[in-house]
């Protein structure tokens, strides 16, 4: 049964991807890529990757769609040119050749799900065995993410922070005036659209009622995912995305200005840097207590309790940074005027 479902999902994914590439309407492409992400998340779940499925659903289907739509309002929705036939033939040739080569290569790959493959022999069994004894939290993925490979995760947090800073820098530039002056009619249409946009959906009853009901529960779920990450699927990355989604929903309902009054931009910027600093600070504290960088065992008298404290704190750091960066990016796109 699972097999049939897996094949069904994979096939749907291919169809969706083809439709995304084929459509000329960018709005359709973005919505389809949200569906694509959701199918991908379901497929990850079938492949035993609950944490990854949660992340993909929250980020791929949720935040990413919002960001793409935010960009589309600034750039326009229609794809103007079809690629020329020569271009298309060459591209199809290259693509077909590589596809065939990769498919040929798959016949040499180890069998799917075989526990004897090299991937399963290396560090994975060690991680699973050691987690039970040394860290003692049920979710092995969180243990590997936060403790065994804490350096990696610190690096990822800094990459996310850097991307956030990059967006703030990019949008701090004021555009030079375009040579072609806009017709009056165009600018008028734009300004009315802007007023509506600034107010969000305040004058629409049904989104208001439903959204207001949902926001507290989304926030609660975000906090649950954050602090229950040691025991079930979840952790800072997913929680950050979910909390950001709740506040984005608020911004869509009440308008940009109100959302920025609830959480001002300086708080968001502080969160971006603060989470990364909190994470690094845990590492430095470990060093001060005669341990190595990010060796949580020294944080408490009992090494296992030390691990628990360390993981909770760094996950909080991750969550704070991810929330800050995603919201800053959203506000950067949504608050940008159309030029």
């Amino acid at each position: 049964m699972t097999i049939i479902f897996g094949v069904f999902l994979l096939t749907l994914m291919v169809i969706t991807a083809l439709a995304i590439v084929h459509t000329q309407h960018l709005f359709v492409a973005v919505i389809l890529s949200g569906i694509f992400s959701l199918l991908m998340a379901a497929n990850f779940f079938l492949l035993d990757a609950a944490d990854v499925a949660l992340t993909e659903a929250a980020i791929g289907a949720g935040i990413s769609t919002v960001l793409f739509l935010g960009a589309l309002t600034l750039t326009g929705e229609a794809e103007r040119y079809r690629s020329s036939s020569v271009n298309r033939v060459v591209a199809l040739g290259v693509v077909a050749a590589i596809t065939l080569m990769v498919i040929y290569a798959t016949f040499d790959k180890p069998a799917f799900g075989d526990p004897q493959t090299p991937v399963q022999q290396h560090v994975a069994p060690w991680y699973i065995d050691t987690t039970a004894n040394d860290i003692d939290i049920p979710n092995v993925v969180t243990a590997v993410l936060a403790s065994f490979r804490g350096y990696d995760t610190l690096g990822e947090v800094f990459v996310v922070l850097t991307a956030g800073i990059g967006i703030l820098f990019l949008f701090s530039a004021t555009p030079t005036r375009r040579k072609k002056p806009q017709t009056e009619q165009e600018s008028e249409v734009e300004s009315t659209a802007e007023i509506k946009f600034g107010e969000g959906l305040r004058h629409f009853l049904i989104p208001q009622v439903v959204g207001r009901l949902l926001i507290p529960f989304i926030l609660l779920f975000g906090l649950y995912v954050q602090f229950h990450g040691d025991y079930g699927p979840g952790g800072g990355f997913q929680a950050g995305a979910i909390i950001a989604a709740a506040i984005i929903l608020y911004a869509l309902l009440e308008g940009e200005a109100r959302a920025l009054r609830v959480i001002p931009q300086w708080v968001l910027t502080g969160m971006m840097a603060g989470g990364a600093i909190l994470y690094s600070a845990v590492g430095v504290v470990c060093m001060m207590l005669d341990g190595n960088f990010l060796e949580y065992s020294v944080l408490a008298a009992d090494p296992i309790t030390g691990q628990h404290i360390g993981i909770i704190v760094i996950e909080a750091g991750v969550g704070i940074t991810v929330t800050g960066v995603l919201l800053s990016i959203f506000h950067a796109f949504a608050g940008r005027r159309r030029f």
Partner: protein
Amino acid sequence: MELLGLYHYWVFAVLLMIGFYAVISKSNLIKKLIGLSIFQAAVFLLYITMGKVAGGTAPIIQAGVENAVFSNPLPQVLILTAIVVGISTMALGLGIVVRIKEEYGSIEERDIQEIDRR
């Protein structure tokens, strides 16, 4: 089971190349970014597929369950963080596209090259 595994790898190859096709043949910059995200998703799929163990379950240890088979947690950790980093870099790409639109008035590669040539 064998065929399902091969099917996973084939879908990986096809998705990878659908994304790549959008990147190389489309003129619209947003479409290229969407293609890139399909490409990225295909790589994620490959990693997670390789971490699957037959008869396994999600790597969450349950008290009182002995000899449970777990799928490989390592690819899951790598991909989990990669998804978040992926969206951050994608947003940066979108930001650049928006700035290009503001300066050139177009997000079509063909128009931009023409304006540059002038």
